[in-house]
């Protein structure tokens, strides 16, 4: 355990609870999430739509729509400072400078009425005390780093003059323009086609190494996780159900949900008639079932699961699972 502790903790989330107070009731979007991200690492946050992964990231950025969203409990420790306690003004200094974010839709995440150079320079001028000329020079430098060809010319392009992949590169340049230590990437490759996806992921990996920053990668694509992440947290209905390193997750998925997800991936080496799916749908967040929230869809659920939710427990070193019957899953795996 000592070796683990020597790595620098960049972001530590403890028991984060983010609720939305809607007219229909309290929506527990994130309900007691613990995460740990060391510097220079990539943490994957996986789950289907509505499981709370984006709300987690918005909580870190403190950009929740408020009201109705509110961080009810928990700590978000970034280099020892609790972000949940900071004022909006202090947060603004942090955003872009220490923590940056890239979004899913490169088509709309750039302002259509300004050139990309203008937007990158703006971010630089906001956080750094430099002249406009220097900001422009740095912008060109950034565009070069994210692999945009002839950046001296491209800097004066408007977003609509760039392709989707180029826009996402420009967006990454924008996010990294002030050397953040943490980059939150909210499904950065979902809107891109597969070849561009691979390029962007590679770019992110390269930049991570050269800047020694950490990445929190939010995705529903397990393929992306396998390629980029050091550790992975699988979320379901606002809670983490499995938390381990990428190798452990793919080698030995131990929560029935994770296992179901893996099984649902079409495989090239098998000839099957019908793809495996997880039965049912995500439960309505206003009306979660009693006990384990996965019990409506779980193939191995029993009475215990209907009554009580399991704690996140360490089943082997560095592998945590929130399930009563992770051993029983092993038998199921053999059948399939």
């Amino acid at each position, binding site marked *: 355990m000592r070796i683990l502790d020597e790595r620098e903790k960049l972001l530590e989330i403890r028991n984060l609870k983010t609720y939305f107070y809607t007219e229909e009731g309290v929506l527990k979007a994130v309900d007691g999430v613990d995460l740990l991200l060391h510097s220079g690492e990539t943490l994957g946050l996986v789950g289907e739509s509505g499981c709370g992964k984006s709300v987690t990231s918005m909580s870190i*950025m403190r950009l929740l729509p408020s009201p109705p969203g509110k961080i009810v409990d928990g700590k978000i420790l970034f280099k020892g400072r609790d972000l949940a306690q900071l004022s909006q003004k202090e947060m603004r200094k942090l*955003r872009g400078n220490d923590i*940056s974010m*890239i979004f*899913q839709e490169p088509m709309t*995440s750039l302002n259509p009425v300004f050139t990309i150079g203008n937007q990158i320079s703006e*971010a630089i001028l906001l956080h750094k005390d430099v002249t406009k000329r220097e900001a422009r020079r740095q912008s060109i430098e950034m565009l070069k780093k994210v692999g945009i060809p002839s950046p001296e010319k491209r800097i*004066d392009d408007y977003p609509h003059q760039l392709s989707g992949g180029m826009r996402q590169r420009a967006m990454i340049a924008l*996010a990294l323009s002030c050397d953040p230590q943490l980059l939150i990437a909210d499904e950065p490759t979902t809107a891109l086609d597969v070849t561009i996806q691979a390029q962007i992921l590679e770019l992110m990996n390269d930049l991570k190494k050269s800047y020694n920053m950490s990445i929190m990668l939010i995705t529903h694509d397990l393929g992306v996780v396998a390629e980029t992440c050091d550790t992975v947290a699988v979320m379901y209905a606002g809670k983490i159900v499995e938390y381990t390193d990428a190798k452990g997750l793919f080698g030995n998925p131990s929560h029935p949900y994770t296992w179901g997800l893996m099984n649902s991936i079409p495989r090239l080496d098998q000839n099957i008639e019908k793809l495996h799916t997880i039965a049912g749908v995500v439960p309505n967040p206003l009306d979660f079932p009693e006990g384990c929230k996965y019990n409506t869809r779980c193939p191995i659920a029993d009475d215990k699961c209907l009554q009580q939710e399991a704690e996140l427990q360490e089943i082997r070193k560095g592998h945590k699972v929130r399930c009563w019957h992770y051993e029983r899953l092993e038998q199921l795996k053999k059948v399939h």
Partner: protein
Amino acid sequence: MKSQKSKLGENKKWQRLKRNKMAIAGLLIICAILLIAILAPYISPYDPLVLNIRSRFQSPNSEFLFGTDNYGRDLFSRVLYGARVSLKVGVIVVFITSALGTFFGLIAGYFRKLDYVIMRVMDAFMSFPTILLGISIVAILSPSEMNAAIALSVVYTPRTTRIVRSAVLEIKGSEFVRAAKSLGASDFRIILKHILPNCLTPLIVQSTFVFAYAVLAEASLSFVGAGPPPPAPSWGNILSEGRQYIRTAPWITIFPGIFIALTVLGLNLTGDGLRDALDPKMKK
């Protein structure tokens, strides 16, 4: 390089506008009337205020192009000078409504708490019939050119506010605003730099319509005596004075009427054309 690129974008919009024949026709009408208003002192053959009892009620002829009114004043000169009043009021109204409408619209659209207060006040103003509200305000302020403009600005600001607000609501939810926030931009900065420039298209289009409404409403106010008081000519009060003689001297009402209709038509055509050119999404 930069100017070349942005020119390219402007060119495209200009091309789209140029292809729209109706919009060009509208623009030409507006330019012609603007020219008339500017050049009125030089092109009008007579002083619009000089009475000439001997030549009253002359029908249009070579001496008096549009005929004369009940005081023998040359109608052609009066209509030309009337364009100045109408356009002046129109321009003032456009400026005031755009400024106030943008201000309130941005605040209402961006800050949810203020939205309720501002929009309910605007709704209250909108619930009055246009002309009635205009007349009441002029009645309080006393009739004059400037007061008519102020009254009409009050009347039309809520509409502009609504349009700007709805644009803000749409833009506020867009990803680039979220991205700007995630880069540490303040609310003020986001409103000015990211939201305002993206609201300009609907605002410009709305302004041309407000211009048209204002010209029409100014004429209505003048018609009921709540505009610039006589003897200063405005299209509305010429029309109003001619009303009594409509059976014997219809030209007194016809000519200012034609000019009002032409101006409004021109502005509406231009507005439609601008909307199509600036916002191709709206076309279909």
